[in-house]
């Protein structure tokens, strides 16, 4: 299945071919016929058909979508005989025969060998500016650099540009029109393309090699980019909080549920419980409720907002009244719909019971004990405990990072004077991948970094862009104030692995439990590398993105040290797994 195009372009092409955009596509899953909607992801079609078990692991455990954004690798399925396809990233655009992926069946029997090849056989491009990530940050940067005259290529692994904040509606079916956020994103995408920026969709950057050599997957084969300047705007992914049952089908990140709805107009299930920390959970609860889901509860680790937090709210309002009003709107929606928000609480365990999930809720350290002991029976549990920066490309290129203990994340070390300048020559970075700041910060940083990169390449900054950078500077300061107040408002205990039991899987891919990691640390694995080699924690397909931060924190704590890069898994290529065939194949699949 090919990379997706912008929904309207697809529509135009299909109209020419005499097909309907709202048309359905017949899919076969494990021999059963199901209907997919043109443009949605296979995961969306499968979830809608009630087929949640997508993969069976080495130990026989059932897995389904978790991240919904191509990171966790838990949704692997076999499509028309090709294993290892991420259901959440593959677009429905023609009939397909889909099978559940069972461990050990990935072999290519009967496949003809391809002749060996060398790097010289691989197509290379040398764009003046390459931007990785077509989210708000990457798009803003591309626009600014282009307006100053630079030639800019943007690549993104998702089928549609927009990133997380501006994810676009990919289907016309579903009958729910795009909202203001969608439309704002759409305007930005159009503006960027009209300015003459090329946005290539469905292009995964799987390797980053010093000094500035990027390997990507494009149309079934690999390709190399050697840009004069690189702008990394790869965003963030959701942090893991392992609890008993968190690998069960039906337990997914809040972002995964949001993408199902915002992009594909599919509900993850009928009865939904959303748990974690931060404003995204309320927003998604409100969106899913409006879409017809029954929200059993929103479980928030932060305590009930107190007069002290009203002060934070006031500062947020001063910085960005519109965002606060949006937030209040979500809250009001929920109240009006009679949905309980349980503050100072957390989910503690999920158990499968028939087709349903039984969720236990208890007090988070910040909460009153009142929440303890409640339980809910639902179809879907969403976990949204905040984010980690997607900084793997930056780390692989050698850019230095520092740990921000307050926010519990690694931030990219950036030049104080030059926006976005990392410690590696020619490499610039912005947005959530450098440290969480949200979409508005990413947009402002994008404008500043795009202009900086263009100037660095010798382009003259037009007056219009100079004014835009001035405004971006003001916006940036304002939205940083907003973010600081927001996180004060949502300050709660930051959960790591406190809720995991000894037999709870910490490393989803290699199925390594907390008990095994504990034992290896107690037996004295002195370094993160040793721990990895001793237990296989972090050795799986997601490249340690979920368990890595947890294990690093555990190890640093055990050694009584401040967390720093020494405790992180060494950055290794590829940043996303890549099939042997894709490396060997000469032209389009």
């Amino acid at each position: 299945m090919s990379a997706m195009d912008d929904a309207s372009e697809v529509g135009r092409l299909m109209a020419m071919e005499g097909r309907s955009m709202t048309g359905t596509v017949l899919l076969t899953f494990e021999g059963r016929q199901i209907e997919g909607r043109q443009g949605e992801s296979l995961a969306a079609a499968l979830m809608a058909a009630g087929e949640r078990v997508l993969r069976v692991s080495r130990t026989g455990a059932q897995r389904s979508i978790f991240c919904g954004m191509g990171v966790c690798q838990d949704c692997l399925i076999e499509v028309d005989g090709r294993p290892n396809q991420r259901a959440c990233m593959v677009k429905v655009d023609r009939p397909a025969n889909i099978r559940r992926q069972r461990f050990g069946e990935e072999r290519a029997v009967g496949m003809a060998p391809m002749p060996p090849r060398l790097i010289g056989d691989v197509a290379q491009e040398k764009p003046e500016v390459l931007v990785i990530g077509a989210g708000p940050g990457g798009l803003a940067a591309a626009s600014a650099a282009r307006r100053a005259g630079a030639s800019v290529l943007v690549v993104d692994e998702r089928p549609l540009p927009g990133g997380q904040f501006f994810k676009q509606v990919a289907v016309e079916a579903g009958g729910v029109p795009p909202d203001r956020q969608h439309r704002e994103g759409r305007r930005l995408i159009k503006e960027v393309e009209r300015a003459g920026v090329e946005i290539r969709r469905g292009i995964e950057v799987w390797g980053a090699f010093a000094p500035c050599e990027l390997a990507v997957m494009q149309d079934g084969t690999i390709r190399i980019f050697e840009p004069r300047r690189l702008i990394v705007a790869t965003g963030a992914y959701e942090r893991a909080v392992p609890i008993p049952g968190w690998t069960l089908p039906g337990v997914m990140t809040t972002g995964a549920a949001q993408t199902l709805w915002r992009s594909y107009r599919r509900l993850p299930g009928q009865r939904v419980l959303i748990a974690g920390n931060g404003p995204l959970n309320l927003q998604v609860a409100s969106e899913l409720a409006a879409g017809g889901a029954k929200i059993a509860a929103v479980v928030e680790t932060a305590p009930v907002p107190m007069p002290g937090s009203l002060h934070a709210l006031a500062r947020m309002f001063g910085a960005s009244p519109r965002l606060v009003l949006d937030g209040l709107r979500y809250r009001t929606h929920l109240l009006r719909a009679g949905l309980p928000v349980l503050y100072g609480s957390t989910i503690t365990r999920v158990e499968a019971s028939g087709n349903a999930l039984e969720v236990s809720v208890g007090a988070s350290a910040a909460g009153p004990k009142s929440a303890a002991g409640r339980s809910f029976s639902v179809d879907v549990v969403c976990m949204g405990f905040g984010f980690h920066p997607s900084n793997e490309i930056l780390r692989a290129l050698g850019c230095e990072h520092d740990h921000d203990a307050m926010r519990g994340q690694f931030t990219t070390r950036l030049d104080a004077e030059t926006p976005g300048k990392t410690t590696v020559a020619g490499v610039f970075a912005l947005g959530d991948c450098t440290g969480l700041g949200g979409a508005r910060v990413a947009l402002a940083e994008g404008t500043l970094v795009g202009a900086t990169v263009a100037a660095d390449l010798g382009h003259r900054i037009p007056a219009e862009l100079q004014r835009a950078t001035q405004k971006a500077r003001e916006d940036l300061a304002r939205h940083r104030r907003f973010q600081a107040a927001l996180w004060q408002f949502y300050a709660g205990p930051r959960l790591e692995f406190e809720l995991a039991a000894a037999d709870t899987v910490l490393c989803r891919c290699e199925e390594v439990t907390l008990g095994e990691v504990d034992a290896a640390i107690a037996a004295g694995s002195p370094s993160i590398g040793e721990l990895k080699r001793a237990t296989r924690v972090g050795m799986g397909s997601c490249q340690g993105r979920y368990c890595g931060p947890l294990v690093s924190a555990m190890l640093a704590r055990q050694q009584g040290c401040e967390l720093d890069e020494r405790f992180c898994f060494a950055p290794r290529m590829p940043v996303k797994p890549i099939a042997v065939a894709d490396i060997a194949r000469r032209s389009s699949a």
Partner: protein
Amino acid sequence: MTDPSSAPHPRVSEISTLVIGGGIVGTCLGGFLAGEGDDVAVIDAGWPAGSIANAGSIHVQMQSQFMSDYPQYIPRLERSLNLYRQAVPFWKRFQDDLGVDCELRITGGLMIAEDRRQLDFLSKKCRREVELGLDVAILTRPELAKLAPYLGPAVIGAEFCPAEGKVNPLLANTAIRRWANGRGAVLLHEEPVLRLELEGKAFRATTSRGIIRAGRVALAAGFASKDLAAQLSIELPAEADPLHMNITEGTTPFIGHLVQHADRPITLKQLGGGQVVIGGGWPAGLGTPGTIPIVKLSSIIGNVSLAQHIIPQIAQLRIIRTWAGINTFVDGCGILGRIDAVPGLFFAIPGSAGYTLGPLSARLVADCILGRDPSEDISACSVDRFSAP
């Protein structure tokens, strides 16, 4: 069971024998010496090297790639062939001593040919190896179809060496450290030796944490031994050779043997967990000293596409990780034993397939240190060969 390296870092200021380098050779050496009552410490810098990065192939037959790249070293390689042969049964016994299943499997190894010329080269090599006492044979395509049905149509024949196989270095390294510690060797980690000097009849090592005086010193620091030896005015042509590795996700086992190529750099095998490990000598870039070597895209492309060419069934597996390690290159043969010029100094550098040779090499050097005749002839490995006119 406690891993030694976790213990609070011991302070050592005087020791009978100081082994510099805690890779497979140094750690085994420490274990053997301690087991016989020697007061020994193994000190390791924690720098990237061979033992933590290697592919775990158990090699015996001569590497054809090496032979065509360095024809001048073939005689040296031939003289060390017997050590390779003995190293395999030694590894088996050693694994029994460790009491841990390190996934040592003697499955046999195939060096494959794709055309007549390569097969002729292998036939000649095979005849020579038989003369030298090795159990090897040339297999034709129909024989291969039975023995190794996973090989693709590009393969027309192969040299088979039943003594070859694989071991899981992740398991073995941990087991060896525990074993050495259990026998009383002191293991000092993340402590580089910065200077090595003679002090009367003894040695004085200045480390990152202080001074250690030792009656005897064994250099088991791989290529880094060169700099240490130079401080004692000994020339040692041991060079850093940064190499590339790839590994796929796990799947069901289907590749039985260690697979190599007659004319191209590749080694390939499947681990116990079903991951296919692909290496064989593609280059990596050397970073600044003490940092991990740099993975090259060119090596990923060359090595991985070659692998699927000879075993097409791996095509749908995904490469999940690549890494690079630093091997030590000498001249086809290790550097083992004593040196007349500096009494009390010993060398323990095993030669290029040093994971295979590691335990045996350590045993032989331990014998030298303890003043015994080693069980194998190591005259070809003497350091004196570099100073001989």
